[in-house]
């Protein structure tokens, strides 16, 4: 991957450890592909496993996390010059918890059934290490526009990975997608896939497929240079 061209002007004072300047599309794209939260960084594993037994639950959890990521990223970035270094983690957690409470109440008001199915896993977004990780590593060190772009990218990457995982599990474990029967009555559902061990196994298989692609590409690159 070639380094992105720096187009953002450095009108802010230098912050140690700040991410390199990059075009906005790159801030979004990085979260979806190169630094995908689930498939590359392995962050936010608890909701990834716990709620991906049906596609509807997976998508709802992805969108709720996207909302919290964008909101908390924006506010952490806006307040970055006013938050004292010693209490920054507590402050980030408070900002995140506020948005999680919002997401929880909005979901309960609009989709009560999904809210009931996800149960305590919506409030548990607070403890998703992805959120604190992005606040500390990215949003606290850049302007609000870039923080928004990063939140959007990471949220979309998270939603896509969760959708893929939950689609695989619901299709094999139940023969359906979004609760609609897809594979017909002759299909014998693999109940194992919607149970807890199936979650570990499905993500393990996704990572093994990713590993297979990467080793194959590395081997082809070696053969091309040899």
């Amino acid at each position: 991957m070639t380094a992105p061209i720096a187009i953002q002007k450095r009108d802010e004072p230098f912050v140690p450890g700040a991410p390199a300047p990059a075009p906005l599309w790159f801030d979004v794209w990085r979260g979806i592909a190169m630094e995908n939260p689930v498939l590359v960084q392995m962050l936010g594993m608890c909701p990834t496993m716990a709620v991906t037994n049906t596609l509807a639950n997976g998508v709802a959890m992805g969108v709720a996390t996207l909302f919290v990521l964008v909101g908390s990223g924006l506010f952490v970035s806006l307040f970055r010059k006013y938050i004292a270094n010693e209490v920054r983690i507590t402050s980030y957690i408070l900002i995140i918890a506020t948005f999680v409470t919002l997401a929880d109440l909005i979901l309960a008001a609009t989709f009560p059934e999904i809210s009931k199915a996800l149960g305590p896993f919506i409030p548990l977004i607070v403890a998703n290490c992805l959120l604190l990780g992005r606040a500390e590593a990215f949003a606290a060190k850049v302007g609000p526009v870039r923080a928004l772009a990063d939140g959007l990218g990471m949220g979309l990457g998270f939603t896509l990975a969760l959708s893929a995982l939950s689609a695989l599990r619901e299709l094999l474990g139940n023969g359906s997608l979004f609760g609609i029967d897809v594979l017909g009555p002759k299909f014998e559902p693999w109940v194992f896939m919607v149970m807890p061990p199936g979650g570990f196994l499905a993500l393990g298989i996704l990572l093994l497929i990713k590993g297979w692609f990467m080793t194959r590409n590395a081997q082809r690159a070696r053969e091309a240079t040899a």
Partner: protein
Amino acid sequence: MSNLAWIFTSTLLVNNFTLVMFLGLCSFFGVTAKIETAWRLGLANTFVLLITAVSASFLNAYVLTRTPYLRTIAFIVVIASAVQIVEMAVKKHVPVLFRQLGIYLPLITTNCAILGLALFQTSRKYNWIEGIVFAIGAGLGLTLALSLLASIRERIEVADVPELAKKMGLVLVAASCLSMAFMGFAGMGSG
């Protein structure tokens, strides 16, 4: 009394926090490369879980009765400050343990097992004695799962596995088998 014993075995084995309910997976995959750090972190978690259970039942009984919408925020603030207090106390009185735990002690704040315990305790309406038993069961279950996976990973380190499975893929499949083994307890207590 039998109720308390059932809460304990249920959280320790049947509904193991990590392997069946998927709580605390970050530390489950993050710190299980060595068995020593794994069980030490497990015990530190057990201690914080205990404090959380007591403070959560206090909050539920006296503070949050009229403001349930503040529950998430109140819990996370109490957990963060409890971890901070534990960290300072351990540093002052048992410096040896403090050095051994290192970075893992502050990281417990963002472990979903802790917040999960407080939330499940609320939704199941446990009183404070049941909460304490629930916390001990959950903590020991966490320690058990962490130690088991760490032992498997230490063995995988020296095994000859294909290149594509070198990273997390194989660990997840191993975790799946471990979780399957714990599903064997699922019938317990229903009869």
